[in-house]
């Protein structure tokens, strides 16, 4: 089988803003920078459904309507702790309908908080993309 050899993975990420105009950011376990709700698609899964599933798994939020902003191509080969290597293609969505209070799952996600755009923490690529779209 494929083992740890590099593959192309596809996934989705979401820009979620609250009523105060604050952006939801997540810090993954072991990471220093903050990013978005994101994850890799299951087989044959629609990208918007990937985002809904990941939001629920990572933070407990329920996502309704979304709008596609752009399709991001990989910038570099990613490697995760188990040695798997992949290039990721990520559909970036603006979430226009959501409910709930974000609670980090404590497994993949260490922290999940809303930040005002004037006071953002260190951001990863997806976090910076969200910042660009909200500017």
């Amino acid at each position, binding site marked *: *089988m*494929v083992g740890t*050899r*590099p*593959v*192309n*993975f*596809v996934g989705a990420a979401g820009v979620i803003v609250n009523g105060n105009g604050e952006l939801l950011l997540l810090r993954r376990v072991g990471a220093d920078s903050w990013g978005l709700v994101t994850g890799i*698609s299951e*087989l*044959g*899964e*629609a*990208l918007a*459904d990937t985002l809904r599933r990941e939001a629920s798994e990572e933070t407990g939020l329920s996502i309704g309507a979304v709008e*596609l902003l*752009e*399709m991001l*191509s*990989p910038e570099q*080969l990613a490697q995760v702790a188990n040695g798997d290597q992949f*290039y990721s*293609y990520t*559909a970036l969505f603006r979430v226009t309908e959501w409910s709930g209070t974000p609670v980090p799952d404590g497994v993949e996600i260490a922290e999940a908080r809303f930040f005002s755009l004037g006071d953002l923490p260190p951001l990863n690529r997806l976090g910076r993309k969200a910042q660009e779209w909200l500017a």
Partner: protein
Amino acid sequence: MNYVRDLRALIGHAPVNWVGVCALVLNAANEVLLQRRTDTGGWGTLGGIAELGEELPETLRRELWEEARLTPIDPQFLTVISGPQTYQKLPNGDEFYQVVAVYVVREWDGEPVPDGEEGTELRFFALDDLPAPLGPVDGEALELLWLGLQ
């Protein structure tokens, strides 16, 4: 480099998510350029699957060159199509789902010439007189284009 062939050598016909592009090449009369595909025998849009780590705008340029000897000028990203309806099984048994970035190409350099390998014929079709059957992704992309032009 041939990511599809290399991965298929490892996983056989098993279903996968392929990431790629579809080009809606439109002439001044809003007719779309389709190719008769060698693998399925039917008509389809130009485009194809991304090589390992390839940026999608580059996939678009590469596929348009390989399949039609065209070089796109200022392609416009339209949408991305994904989901269970994109499932296909080829005559050779390969199964896959598709995640397809759709681009509209209204300007290009070159004259369309089929490559004779992936496609045997290239022809512009009016959007209200498309050949049938089209694949699921082509149908959805062209429907969206048609709605946008109304």
